[in-house]
C-alpha cells in the first residue's frame, strides 16, 4: 500500500518534470518567428579573416531581424573539428556550428547533432530549396543533420595566353587535354599540374566508374580494375608524357600557385582559385571548362559545409531559425558576391553573378553531376591511404596496382581496427 502510494507520487513528479523539459525544448512552444527567443553560441571556422568578418556581419543582421535571439560568435581559427569534438566530449559544445563533412562523420552517428527534419517543416524550410547533391552529405538514416551553406567543386582552368601562343583551341575532351598538355610543355613549363591528392584524383576515380568504399561502406575498394585504370590515366601525364608535374617540383605550394606563376598551363581546381588569381596574379588571363566526360561518366568532386545544431541545444527553435537564415537567400547572395563559394540554393542559379561569369557558371553547373567528397567515420585514415598511394606512384616508388593494393589494405585495417 505504502509502496504503491510512493510509486504514484514518483510518477506524478516524473510527469511534471517531463512536461517541464518538453516545454523548455520548444522554447515555450512559440509558433511565430517573432516570438522565438533565446541565446545561441554559434561556432564558425575563422581561419580566413575576410570570411570570419562576413559571418560576424550576417550574425548581426540576423539579430536585427530577430531581436529576441542573441547570437555569440565563437570563431575557431584552426583545427575546427578537433575543438568541437573536445567540446562535445565535455558536453560544452556551441548551439549552432559549421558542420563540415568530417564533423558530420563523427558527430551524427554518435547522436550529437540535432535532426533538423521536424524543425524544417515547423519553420517552413523545404529540402527542395537546395541542390539535391548538397543535401545528401548531411543525411543519415533518413535524418537531416545540417543544411548546406555553400559549396565548391572542381573544373579545369586553362591559361588563355599560353594556349593561344601555342595555337591551341579550348580543349573539349580528355584526348584534347592530353595532346594540348604535351604541346604546352616546354622549358620550365608543364602543360598540367596534377597533385598527389585524393581530393583531385577521386574525380577521375568516380569518372572511371570506380568507388572509394563499397556500397555498404564497410570496405575500401579503390584497388579494382576501374580504380587502376583511373590512376594509370591520372599518372600517365607525369610518368609517360612528362606533361605534368607535382606543384612543389614546379616551385609552387599548390596547383593554383603553379597556375598563377604560369608554370602549369592547366589545373583542376575549384572556385577558390578565382579570388586567389584576382588577388595574387591579376595579370594572368585564364578560362575554364567543365571536366570533360570520363570513359564511364561525367564527374567532379563536391566540397561542402553546412550549418547545424547541437543535439543538446536548449533553444532548438532559435537555432533552426539561425540555420534557416544563414543558409537562406539573403546571406547566400552575399556569399556569392564575395566570391568565396557558390550558393547551395537552386533559386540563386539564375543570379547575374553566376550567369554573367562563365567560370562561375561552369562551377555551379558541375554540381549536378559532382559527387560529395566524404567517406564516413574513418575518412581521414582512408584519405591518408589514398594520398600515400598517389604519392608513391607519382614519385615513382611503386606501380599502380601495388600502391592501390597496399592503400586498400591500410584503409581496411583502419576501418576494422576502429
Amino acid at each position, binding site marked *: 500500500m505504502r509502496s504503491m502510494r510512493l510509486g504514484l507520487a514518483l510518477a506524478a513528479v516524473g510527469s511534471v518534470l517531463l512536461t517541464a523539459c518538453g516545454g523548455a525544448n520548444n522554447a515555450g512552444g512559440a509558433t511565430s518567428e517573432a516570438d522565438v527567443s533565446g541565446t545561441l553560441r554559434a561556432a564558425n571556422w575563422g581561419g580566413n579573416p575576410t570570411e570570419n568578418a562576413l559571418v560576424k556581419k550576417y550574425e548581426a543582421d540576423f539579430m536585427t531581424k530577430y531581436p529576441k535571439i542573441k547570437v555569440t560568435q565563437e570563431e575557431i581559427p584552426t583545427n575546427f573539428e578537433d575543438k568541437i569534438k*573536445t567540446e562535445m566530449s565535455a558536453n560544452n559544445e556551441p548551439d549552432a556550428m559549421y558542420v563540415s563533412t568530417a564533423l558530420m562523420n563523427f558527430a551524427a552517428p554518435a547522436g550529437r547533432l540535432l535532426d533538423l527534419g521536424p524543425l524544417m517543416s515547423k519553420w517552413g524550410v523545404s529540402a527542395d530549396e537546395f541542390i539535391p547533391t548538397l543535401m545528401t552529405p548531411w543525411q543519415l538514416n533518413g535524418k537531416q543533420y545540417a543544411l548546406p551553406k555553400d559549396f565548391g567543386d572542381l573544373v579545369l582552368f586553362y591559361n588563355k595566353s599560353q594556349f593561344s601562343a601555342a595555337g591551341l583551341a579550348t580543349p573539349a575532351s580528355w584526348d584534347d587535354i592530353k595532346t594540348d598538355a604535351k604541346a604546352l610543355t616546354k622549358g620550365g613549363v608543364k602543360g598540367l599540374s596534377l597533385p598527389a591528392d585524393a581530393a583531385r584524383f577521386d574525380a577521375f576515380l568516380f569518372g572511371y566508374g570506380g568507388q572509394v568504399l563499397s556500397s555498404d561502406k564497410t570496405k575500401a575498394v579503390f584497388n579494382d580494375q576501374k580504380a587502376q585504370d583511373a590512376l594509370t590515366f591520372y599518372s600517365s601525364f607525369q610518368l609517360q608524357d612528362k606533361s605534368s608535374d607535382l606543384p612543389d617540383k614546379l616551385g609552387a605550394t599548390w596547383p593554383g600557385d603553379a597556375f598563377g606563376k604560369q608554370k602549369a598551363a592547366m589545373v583542376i581546381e575549384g572556385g577558390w582559385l578565382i579570388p586567389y588569381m584576382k588577388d595574387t596574379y591579376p595579370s594572368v588571363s585564364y578560362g575554364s571548362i567543365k571536366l570533360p566526360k570520363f570513359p564511364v561518366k561525367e564527374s567532379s568532386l563536391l566540397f561542402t559545409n553546412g550549418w547545424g545544431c547541437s543535439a543538446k541545444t536548449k533553444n532548438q527553435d532559435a537555432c533552426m531559425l539561425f540555420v534557416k537564415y544563414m543558409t537562406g537567400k539573403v546571406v547566400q547572395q552575399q556569399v556569392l558576391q564575395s566570391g568565396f563559394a557558390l550558393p547551395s540554393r537552386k533559386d540563386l542559379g539564375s543570379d547575374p553573378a553566376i550567369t554573367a561569369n562563365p567560370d562561375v557558371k561552369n562551377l555551379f553547373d558541375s554540381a549536378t553531376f559532382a559527387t560529395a567528397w566524404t567517406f564516413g567515420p574513418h575518412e*581521414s585514415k582512408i584519405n591518408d591511404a589514398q594520398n*600515400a598511394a598517389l604519392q608513391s606512384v607519382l614519385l615513382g616508388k611503386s606501380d599502380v596496382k601495388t600502391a592501390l593494393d597496399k592503400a586498400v589494405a591500410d584503409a581496411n585495417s583502419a576501418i576494422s581496427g576502429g
Partner: protein
Amino acid sequence: MAVSVAPKAPAATAKVSRRQKRGGMAIAERRAGLLFVTPYLIYFLILQLAAIIFAIWVSFHHYDLLALDNPFVGLRNYARLTVNQDFLIAMRNTTEYAVVVVILQTVFALLLAVLLDSKIKGRNFFRSTWYTPSIASSVVISMIFLYVYHPTGLLNSILGLVGIHTTEAYLQSTAWALPAIMFLAIWTTAPTFMLMFLAALQDIPKEVYEAAAVDGASAVRKLFSITIPLLRPVIFLVVSLGIIGCFQVFDQVFIMTHGGPLKATLTVAFLIYQNIFGDTGAVGVACAEALVLGIVIFALTLISRRVIDTRIEY
C-alpha cells in the same frame, strides 16, 4: 599527537624532552612543507596522476570521445600495436630522430660551451646570440622554417648564391623531410643545453687543469681526460632530457609536415594525436601507444643513467 602529550610529561629526562621537542618541530616543518607543496600536489594528482590512471583504463577499452558505450577489449589495443604499420613506422622514425638529435645536440652543445668557456673575444655577444633560438617557441621557429625550407625559400636562395641551384622541396621529400626537422630541433635545443654545460664547466676546480698543465697535458687531452669525465652528471641530464624531448616530438611535425610525405615524418606523438582526433573509436589505441611510449622513454632514461652517470673520482 606528540605535541599535545609533551607538556603532560614533566618527569621526562632532558634528553627525552629534547627529542620530543625536536620531533615536534619536525612535524610542524613537515606540515609547513606539505602546505607549500599542496598547490603542486593538487595539480599533480588531478591533471597528471589521475590522467595517467584514466589513460591506462582507456587503453583497455574500445574508446571514442563521443560514444556512450565504450566496451572493454582487454589487451587487444596493445596486441594490435605489434602489427599496426603506422605505429611501427612511427616508432622507427621517432627512434631514428632521437638517436641523431640527442647525439648531435649533446656534442654541439658541449662544443659551444667549451668554446664560450675559453677566453675568446666577444664572449658575451656569442653567448646571447647563440642562445636566441632557444627563447622563441617551437611553433614560431617551425613557422619560420617553413619559409626557410620552401622550394624558393631562404635555404635554396643561399645555396643558389654559392652556385648550387635547386628547387628541392625539402618538406615534401621523403628523403629530406625528417633530416630537415632534425636540423631544426638541434639548432633550437642545443643552446639550452649549452647553458647547462657552461654552468657545470664553471664548477670544475681550476687546480685539476693546473695540475694537468704541469704534467704537460695538451688541450685535447684535458678535454677528454678532465672536462668530459667531470661533466658526466650534466651529460646524463642533457642526454635524458634530450631523449624525453625527442621521443615526444610533436609541434614541428604538426606544423610543418603533418607526418608526411608518405609517413616519412610520422612520429609516435603525432600518431597519438591523429588517432584521437582524426579517427573514430581509436582513443584506446592512442592511449596504448602513449603508455608504450612512456615505458620506452623510462627504460631508455634508466639505461642512459647506467651508462653515463657513474661516480666521479677526483
